[in-house]
């Protein structure tokens, strides 16, 4: 089971995502932003970081890299794709997911151990959670406020596409406390918190993030 992790210039959590895939029992495969090749992986992670410095808008420039052409095509064909933080921003900028992520309402970068409720467990990336499971996962972002128009938000809710919601504290002003969403099919998931920083007890916020990576392994092997 090969999971690709894309490195854009300015990606930071790519090595951590690869480690998380390994901890989950998968084989991480490094993908390069300039390549037109997904190396026959079974799933792709777009990691966190500041691609192109997050200058302009987070994810806006990365979206035009050659590898994204491939990722977009493959995602439309059903390949599981997880965008974490900057990766989520890239997915929105690429229109694989609706809405956008804007500057935190308090205007500061925030790093905290964040409570979440997993709202949808039938995606490629969350099948390992139980419905409405409450977890703690590291959150760290400067532009993490999820926004979309009311119509889109209602549709996301109606179709059960809100994957995770913030608990207790809304850390960035996200509308309806949205921490993550998926596309209709459930293969593409975007998430602000960082499950790759929650796979080992010793580092990060615990092990609550691991099911993101084990889910996709069973998904692909099973399906």
């Amino acid at each position: 089971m090969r999971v690709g992790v894309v490195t854009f210039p300015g990606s930071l959590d790519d090595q951590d995502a690869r480690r998380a895939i390994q901890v989950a029992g998968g084989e991480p495969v490094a993908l390069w932003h300039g390549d037109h090749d997904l190396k026959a992986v079974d799933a792709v992670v777009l990691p966190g970081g500041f691609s192109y410095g997050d200058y302009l808008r987070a994810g806006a420039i990365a979206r035009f890299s050659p590898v994204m052409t491939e990722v977009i095509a493959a995602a439309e064909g059903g390949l599981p794709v997880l965008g974490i933080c900057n990766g989520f921003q890239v997915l929105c900028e690429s229109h694989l997911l609706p809405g956008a992520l804007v500057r935190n309402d308090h205007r500061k970068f925030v790093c905290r151990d964040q409570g979440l409720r997993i709202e949808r467990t039938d995606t490629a990336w969350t099948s390992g959670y139980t419905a409405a499971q409450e977890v703690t996962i590291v959150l760290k972002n400067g532009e993490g406020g999820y926004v979309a128009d009311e119509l889109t938000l209602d549709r996301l809710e109606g179709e059960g596409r809100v994957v995770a919601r913030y608990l207790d504290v809304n850390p960035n002003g996200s509308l309806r406390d949205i921490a993550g969403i998926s596309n209709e099919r459930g293969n593409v998931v975007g998430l602000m918190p960082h499950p790759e920083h929650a796979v080992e007890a010793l580092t990060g916020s615990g092990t609550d993030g691991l099911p993101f990576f084990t889910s996709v392994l069973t998904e692909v092997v099973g399906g």
Partner: protein
Amino acid sequence: MSLDTVKQAGETPEQSQPWAELGLKPDEYAQFHEILGRRPTSSELAMYSVMWSEHCSYKSSKVHLKQFGEKVTDEMRKPLLVGIGENAGVVDIGQGYAVTFKVESHNHPSYVEPYQGAATGVGGIVRDILSMGARPVAVMDPLRFGPADAADTQRVLPGVVAGIGGYGNCLGLPNIGGEVVFDPTYAGNPLVNALCVGVMRHEQIHLAKATGAGNQVILYGAKTGGDGIGGVSVLASETFEDAGPAKRPSVQVGDPFMEKLLIECTLEIFAEGIVSGIQDLGGAGLSCATSELASAGDGGMHVWLDRVPLRDSSLSPEEILMSESQERMMAVVEPAHVERFLEICAKWDVDATVIGEVTDTGRLRIEWHGELIVDVPPGTVAHEGPTYHRPFARPAWQDALQADVAEVLPRPQTGDELRATVLRLAASSNLCDKSWVTDQYDRYVQGNTVLAQPEDAGIVRVDDETGLGIAVSTDCNGRFAKLDPYAGAQLALAESYRNVAVTGARPLAVTDCLNFGSPEDPAVMWQFAEATTALADGCQRLGLPITGGNVSLYNQTGEQAILPTPVVGVLGVLDDVARRTPQGFREAGQQIYLLGTTREELSGSEWAHVVHSHLGGRPPAVDLDVERQLADILVNASRDGLIDAAHDLSDGGLAQALVESSLRYGVGCRVWLPDDLDPFVALFSESAGRAVVVVPRSEEVRFTDMCAARRFPHQRIGVVDGAAIDVQELFSLPLDELRTAWSATLPALFGP
């Protein structure tokens, strides 16, 4: 102005030059004539003036700093792979790994433009570490500001914090600790110190030297612009008189994205083993890099300065030599490897240009469009700057200051008064919750952070397989240093050392950032002399080498110098980070022990500062042998699994330590204070050499036996329990109430 060439300098000995405007003394200018046998060209003058400045030449401080290299023992030399004097020293941490770390100041720029000043401070220290061959793995930021409620602090602090976060987060370096201290003396003169730590394999150590005639000199990274050359623009102006306000900015804007690419690109180059020497470009830019590389190597370099890629084509050669544009590096590469070097740079979208060549002439020669504009012995630029023996004298006011002790001030007496004092101190700006600051920093990136703020030291894992890791802490109590600079510097060292040891790490090496007022004031110079002597003596006592550091002078507003602030960073090693000792109480029923001796030491304390706005008396006594014994106990207890938590006692004394350990996981304690002490003294004295530890019942006998065998003072003072700090017979303070007070302070001042 026409180009000032070497030839022209020889022919026009009488031409007047703006040496005074560049901050040079008449004898220094005369010395250039002696060295060169003619007047310097304007480019040479630019190089000498910047390299012989206080910042680059350490001219006021080096007579004192040299103790760091002299007071060394074999024990201190043992872990040293590279000593002081390189970009940063390197120590062996075992298993084939080496670590380099260093702290630097960016005080003045951060006052002028808080965000960019602080950001570029982080950028500079990271390149220093990178240039040793190491992958940077963490940063820390010791900060000092004026009063928290002062208007200017509202401008400076949020900008500085955002700048450190903005740069460090974007580089992907976890921020694992630092300090936030407020004192009126820092108003108008904030201290922004930045520490970086890096890791490499032994065989990857790189040095800044240009050897091998014919090897190519490559400048890579950002293009050169007119940054940070304010004063030198005078050289490029038509006449010195009409220079007017410098058109060139003295503040630089950082590009962390560029730096991230520079890091990855440089590490890939190191991995292929294709550089023979490397140097970062920091203060004094190309002047520094070329002269230092050349003088450390075979002694010669030829540079074609017009090849330097520019952001601003109007720059003069003098300005190019002085520019402090950020995110640049210089490498010396064998001709056979140049192509591959450029290829790797291209992969990372990093501009790289061959601008020079190593020679065996013993001269640094710089050409500008075919004309020779610099021809100097590089060592004279890099290392032969002046040495000042500045007068220093213990100030007359020191006696009066020390006589004005805090021990006589009115104290809280009743349980209620003590309770109110605990609460008031916990909410005071120096002791309150710092997460308003630290939550703006990514502490998790790279996935190796084992401990970070608010723990006593930050810990990062170095090796996934073996669990090898390092711990770092930085500390300094400037009030103690003001009361007694010698004792104060050793107290800073002791606190930092203790903070590393409480996490279970074995202290290994020291770095420092010496922030002081004007060296032209004999009182300040005395503080500096005392502090450096104290650190050299102290490190010898503790058996730790000083591997590097930084001096920042002229930190004062008018006549008012800052508190002497020798920030000390200590690095420690853990063979297995799984054994680390965290700070918080967690499991009810575990026993709380106080290690060390509490004396009536309240002068310079946080209590005197907050409650009485008082500073006077003598700081707590410091005994480094006691610190060594305490560290030994803490490290062994951690290794043998005898303790589950530990927290050192410093600012705010026992009371504040209990507050912090209780709030960490929301688990409180029941405490009985020793009968033989005034409860107020027991709670608020800031005696050094102490820590609280939490011992599981099952390990109590082994632990107390260990302390007894070493004759180290230890007493059981309580038990982990409940949701309050309950001091028997005196007061009970619910954690909810405490947390509200402790965490409200900074958001109330700086916004939600």
